[in-house]
């Protein structure tokens, strides 16, 4: 056990850079040696409220290309903040190597301590160890890639005009959620190499450019190929629409393809964050809670500071009940932290029920090791479906509600009793299954022999079709990028019956 503190780190709420340094140096051994966290090196940056607003409007990244939608974000956030309707986050952390932590200058010394424990150790450990992040993101290269993206798009604006670039970006943003490879295990992307590759390709194109080639007659068109072969050749069916357009869009210029690629890779980079929200926040919250408690136990922070921490911590993990009037779904902090604290309880002080449910971890007496394994190998869906305990279901009094279109009333399917535990757990896990949150839309065929219509299919589950007005707008963008007609049919997953059909023609003159 580490020695007690000679004196508290701080007593007032003021902080300076040497204090932040001391705080960090006090927390570091607790996190690395006692909890054995494995983190990227940290870089702590102090920023002002205005810079935090800036960061908000570029999805938290320190640099980003220019687009009006970020300006829209900015004016909304600024307005809410100025009016006092919304506070700003105390910190922002970026999944990069080194891991960049933004701390707000307005935070008190206690809050800075909390935030360092939360972001610099909690989130950082999660980013570095969780399998989804390891599989999908390249922490080392992301900043370089964003730099490249920003420069490339600025260059395109110079070459082809701001409006032309903005049109492509608008269309690509609309399809951003359909720009992700969901299933195959991909090799980690090397974003730096990506940027170099494009530069090289551009240089090569410039070098070999010869106007003469324009005048060479083109050979006769190949005969139509049978549909199966054609689909195989095009790599269909394809769920990543942006990828498909980038590779096969018949009328796109190469810079337009590159912009689609940029948007697609950035969407891919953020994809893990969407599947691990509760776990990520849970991991960070659990880490800061544990570190702050240890700091207090050993006298590094005063009782007053600890009270301040507890108050802010409680606010963060507050979960309103469904009928409280301000319920808006599960609070990811609360869900993650709740389950993780419960795992600690199961490890330290299991009941018979816990032993029946969680035989492998109950009573293991080493909660941090168990949690570290969980942080590394699960995402929200699997995490909930494995570790939501009957104890928690009772404590939160969860119940499962079913709303069938054919029935006039809602039905309570399960409550917190012996019959309901597993059903509630399964249902909650399904809510976190990203494949169920998002519509399953795929490119299924292209009418190559005829008018080049691009055919898409939405596999409708539970009879929930697409939001019609938005779908029409997105299809317009898609048709513009494709250059020919686009048809989307919504097909029931069970009986393959077509429920709805959208068609869209490209706007003339859209592609320059």
């Amino acid at each position, binding site marked *: 056990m580490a020695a007690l503190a000679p004196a508290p780190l701080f007593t007032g709420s003021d902080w300076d*850079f040497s204090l932040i340094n001391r705080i960090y140096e006090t927390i570091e051994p607790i996190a690395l040696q006692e909890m054995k966290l494995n983190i990227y090196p*940290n870089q*702590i*940056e*102090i920023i*002002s409220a205005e*810079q935090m607003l*800036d960061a908000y*409007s*570029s999805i938290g990244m320190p640099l980003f290309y*220019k*687009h*009006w939608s*970020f*300006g*829209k974000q*900015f*004016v*909304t956030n600024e*307005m809410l903040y100025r009016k006092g309707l919304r506070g700003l986050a105390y910190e922002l952390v970026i999944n990069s190597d*080194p891991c960049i932590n*933004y701390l707000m200058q307005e935070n008190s010394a206690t809050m800075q301590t909390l935030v360092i424990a939360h972001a*610099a150790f909690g989130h950082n450990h999660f980013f570095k160890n969780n399998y989804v992040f390891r599989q999908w993101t390249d922490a080392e290269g992301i900043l370089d890639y964003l730099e490249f993206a920003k420069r490339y798009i600025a260059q395109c604006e110079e070459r082809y005009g701001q409006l032309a670039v*903005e049109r492509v970006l*608008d269309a690509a943003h*609309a399809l*951003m*959620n359909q720009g992700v490879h969901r299933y195959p295990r991909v090799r980690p992307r090397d974003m730096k190499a990506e940027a170099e590759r494009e530069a090289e390709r551009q240089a090569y194109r410039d070098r070999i450019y010869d106007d003469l080639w324009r005048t060479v007659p083109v050979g006769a068109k190949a005969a139509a190929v049978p549909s199966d072969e054609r689909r195989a050749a095009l790599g269909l069916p394809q769920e990543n629409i942006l990828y498909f357009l980038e590779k096969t869009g018949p009328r796109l210029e190469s810079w337009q393809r590159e912009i689609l690629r940029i948007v697609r890779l950035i969407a891919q980079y953020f994809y893990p964050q969407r599947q691990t929200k509760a776990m990520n926040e849970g991991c960070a919250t659990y880490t800061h809670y544990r570190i702050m408690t240890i700091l207090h136990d050993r006298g590094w922070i005063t009782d007053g500071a600890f009270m301040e921490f507890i108050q802010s911590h409680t606010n963060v993990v507050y979960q*309103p*009940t*469904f009928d409280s009037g301000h319920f808006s*779904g599960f609070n990811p902090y609360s869900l993650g932290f709740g389950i993780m604290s419960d795992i600690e309880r199961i490890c330290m002080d299991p009941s018979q029920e816990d032993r029946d449910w969680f035989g492998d971890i109950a009573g293991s007496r080493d909660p941090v090791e168990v949690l570290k394994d969980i942080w590394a190998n699960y995402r929200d869906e699997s995490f909930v479906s494995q570790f939501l305990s009957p104890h928690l279901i009772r404590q939160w*009094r*969860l*119940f*499962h*509600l079913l*709303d*069938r*279109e054919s029935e006039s*009333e*809602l*039905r*309570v399917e399960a*409550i917190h009793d012996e019959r309901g535990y597993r059903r*509630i757990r399964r*249902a909650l896990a*399904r809510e976190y299954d990203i494949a169920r949150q998002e*519509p399953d839309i795929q490119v299924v065929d292209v009418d190559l022999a005829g008018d080049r219509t691009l055919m898409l299919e939405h596999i*409708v589950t*539970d*009879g*929930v*079709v*697409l*939001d019609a007005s*938005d*779908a029409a*707008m997105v299809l317009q*963008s898609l048709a513009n990028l494709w250059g020919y007609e686009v048809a989307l049919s919504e097909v029931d997953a069970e009986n393959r019956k077509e429920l709805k059909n959208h068609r869209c023609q490209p706007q003339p003159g859209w592609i320059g």
Partner: protein
Amino acid sequence: MHIVDRRLNPGGKSLVNRQRFLRRARAYVSQAVRDSLKDRSIKDLAKEGEITIRRDAIHEPTLHRAAKGGNRERVLPGNREFLEGDRIKRPDGGGGGGSQPGEGEDQDDFRFALSREEFLDLFLDDLELPDMAKKKLVAGKIEGVRRAGYSTIGNPSNLSVPRTMQKAMSRRIALRRPSGRDLKRIDEAIAEIEARAKPLPDDAVALERLREERAHVVRRRNLIAYIDPVDLRFRRFEPVPRPVAQAVMFCLMDVSGSMTAHMKDLAKRFFALLHLFLSRCYEHVDVVFIHHTDRAAEVDEETFFYSTVTGGTLVSSALDKLIEVVKERYSPNDWNIYVAQASDGDTLASDNARVVSLMQDDILPFCQYFAYLEVGREEFASIEAATSTTGLWDAYAPVSESQRHFAMRKVSHRREIYPVFRELFQRRGVGERTRA
């Protein structure tokens, strides 16, 4: 671990995005800005403000599942009374318990704050003084600079490095400054002799000669500088006077007893807009304020907008004053002259003939554009506009028909001021300047 203090980094990273957003929503934002005028007092015209635009104007669509329809399930916390198999009435709003948060944005209007600059830009967008044709060189008004070769003196920031190096090189060649290569060659020769194991007979002499030569070279190199102050050349710029279109705007306002408080408010609002427009969009526009009862006086801005004099009405007095001021200070040969007049149109019938003749014979020939605004009583807003006419209106009507640069409008409500103002000063394409 590094700590970096970013607070001093330049802010405004989002400025470009913000501007692009405003450009994107421009049509909606301008409409909102114009609408917001209704609620503002004269003094607040040019303040920053909050505006609201419809959210769908800037909607970013995505493919997502509809908020209604189909089968849905949901796990919720805080069960108090439900048992398995209970039936609950579907709450209002269709999806009810099934609608997922975060699905679909709320359809509220989109509110945000504009700075004063942004506000005015949109507010005065697309307005201009018509027909600003007379341009003249004005003494003391220097607009631009242009390059004018090189000079031997100047500001260090204007130093032309290529030109300086060129001069230095020609001087070095002319004065035969030994190059570094010469020195190196001698050094090598010396080293070669010194390195010989067995000296040749004339080595001592050769060495002596080489050393002398070396000392000479070094001395010459020191005497003749690589770059000398005489080599320095600076880029030179000279100021260029540019012709300026000088313009003067005469604001004529009737403040006689027949003008009610409401009418004065309307007239003042109109001139406040006009003044704002001129002071913001034109650097070289003089504004002359004249108010009149049965006598006219040139007044300053403060008096014009806030004084409370009153009396009878004699429109010709204001026109006389106008002509007088023009003769005195604003020669029609050099100045673009604009006139805006506001009145309730209630004038002595005997004066009308003189007004018309002054107008046609003296004023219209020298002015580029004359706008007459007739303010009416609020309570008769709709009826009056349609039916009755006033003495001055009747007198002006034939003038307006024969003269293209004379425009007249009626206003009887605050909300009409801005549209009429826009109509009078709308930017017009070449050749389509007609009286609407």
